[in-house]
């Protein structure tokens, strides 16, 4: 049982951070399909940071910096140039995946996986032996519930949260009380950038100490689906992300149990099927959430 909780925590934590980034962006009115790209940037810069500076702190700082830089570009393109969010988000993702590969190649001469000497500090290392079996998890796992709670407070219990939400839902209402929706989106994307950096860091340096090309393997997109499935509510999103993590774990279990009868490749598709199911279910329950699609979206 404990083992299972640890496994779920481990695979869910990076997803949850990134999902929260998606939630706050969604609240502010941005469909954030660039999550995958920012997540890999976070993962890559954390590992490169550790390798190059030898300090976890600087590594995390570097990750935040790059993710924020990516978010600024995204904000500029979407807000200032009024580009289509979905296409621009996919572009950001491509830039992240390609850029990290290029970065590794530029620094090490080959696009090989990068191993760091150490990863993020472990719970046990920081707090001593008080969490028992959970000591081996990274501090970002311990931090996660607090971040979720913090995001919940921010979004659902502060005026800033209301203003961000209003900027997404009814930008004119926001403007008419003196809130600048564009600035709110900026804030949301910056917070999201930091969260993506943490998510990426946890993925690459939480239990591992490795960066490999494309190692996010669709987790960013899954997080985005969790945003929708979780009704863009921090708690709901956390549950949705955990649900996807559980399905992933069950998929592995299924491989071990049914692997002889069902092709493994198809069992590997379970998380994707679960995502589709989640999107369908949330559409059924809450009515479809629809991005501002179309090419001359009328906002305000």
């Amino acid at each position, binding site marked *: 049982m404990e083992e*299972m909780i640890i496994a779920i925590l481990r695979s869910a934590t990076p997803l949850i951070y990134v999902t929260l980034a998606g939630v706050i962006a969604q609240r502010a009115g941005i469909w954030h399909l660039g999550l995958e790209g920012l997540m890999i940037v976070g993962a890559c810069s954390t590992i490169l940071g550790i390798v190059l500076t030898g300090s976890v702190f600087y590594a995390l700082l570097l990750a935040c910096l790059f993710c924020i830089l990516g978010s600024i570009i995204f904000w500029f393109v979407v807000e200032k140039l009024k580009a289509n969010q979905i296409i621009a988000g996919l572009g950001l993702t491509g830039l992240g995946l390609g850029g990290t590969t290029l970065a590794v190649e530029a620094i090490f001469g080959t696009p*090989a*996986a990068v191993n760091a000497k150490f990863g993020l500090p472990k719970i046990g290392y920081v707090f001593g032996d008080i969490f028992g079996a959970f000591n081996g998890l990274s501090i970002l796992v311990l931090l996660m519930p607090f971040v979720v709670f913090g995001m919940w407070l921010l979004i659902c219990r502060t005026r800033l949260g209301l203003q961000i939400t209003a900027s997404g839902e009814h930008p004119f209402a926001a403007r008419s009380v003196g809130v600048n929706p564009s600035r709110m989106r900026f804030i949301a994307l910056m917070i999201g950038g930091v969260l993506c950096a943490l998510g990426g860091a946890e993925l*690459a340096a939480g239990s591992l100490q490795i960066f*490999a090309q494309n190692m996010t393997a669709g987790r960013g997109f899954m997080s985005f689906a969790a945003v929708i499935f979780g009704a863009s509510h921090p708690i709901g999103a956390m549950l949705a992300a955990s649900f996807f993590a559980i399905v992933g774990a069950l998929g592995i279990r299924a491989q071990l149990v049914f692997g002889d009868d069902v*092709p493994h490749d198809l069992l590997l598709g379970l998380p994707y099927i679960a995502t589709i199911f989640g999107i369908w279910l949330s559409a059924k329950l809450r009515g479809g959430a629809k991005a501002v699609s179309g090419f001359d979206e009328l906002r305000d």
Partner: protein
Amino acid sequence: HTQAAGDNGPVDSMISELKKLAAEKGFTARTIYAKDPATYETIFRTLGEAGAAVVVSTFNEVAEPFKAVAPTFPDTNWIQLFGDAFEPPIANVVSVSYDYYLGCYLSGVFAAHVSATGKLGFIGGISIPPINADYNAFKAGAMSVNKDIEVSVAFAGSFQDPAKGLEVASQMYAGGIDYIQTDSGATDGGIISAANEKSGRMVSSLDPAQYELGPKSIISIVGLDFGASLANEAAAALKAGWIGGQHRSTGLGTGVIDFILSPLFKEQGDAGINAKSANAAAEVAKVRAAILDGSLKVPFSTEL
């Protein structure tokens, strides 16, 4: 190469050996990662047109493109590593096959001897035929020692997803498996991390470079000295008098492929396991001899 670099294993060593060779001999080398099978033929053609002296590529998937392209560029020497013999042979093509699965068979034999729980695991990147063959051999090796041993297999879905590797391996270890053979590129990194988490977890990976990633968990490797092999073949092909149209089968007998125990584990690993592993190694040596002298035939199957 058709598999991404970053495995800390064959591909990486191949690239670095090639670079070394290029530096020594003073020629230009290009490494091209072609992940898209639809582009193989075009890339080879471009290389031919560019006047490359030697083109080395990997895995069976390039066989068809080689067949289509090589005859058009008779002045270029083509080498296919990890491939079947061409039928009929092509004059300027050499193919080299590696019986990597035999190494996995040995790993299976070894695992069956050292496992305390009687449960073994195998983690592949994606379920593609060569990986399936490795697993089947691993399983056969284990069963040859103990018919009741349990062998499970799972795939991470990618050769570049260490996080998934960690998850899969954790589940396997949690389920009582204590020995995992990896075959999953960069995903291996996650499997090794999982093995490092608790003592008593053993993992067998595939390159000496990985030893230090898990001094107390990587007990062995099914080594493939791809880099050396590549360097040999390329150097040969650069010399005058190279003869194409051949197939070389190499592997267990020639030292290119072998089941090797980690020296680091011997120093730092669990003493109990090390004691067992000494015995097991002796058994493995016997089996290896039997394979080499032909008295033992290891079946080859790519079906799961």
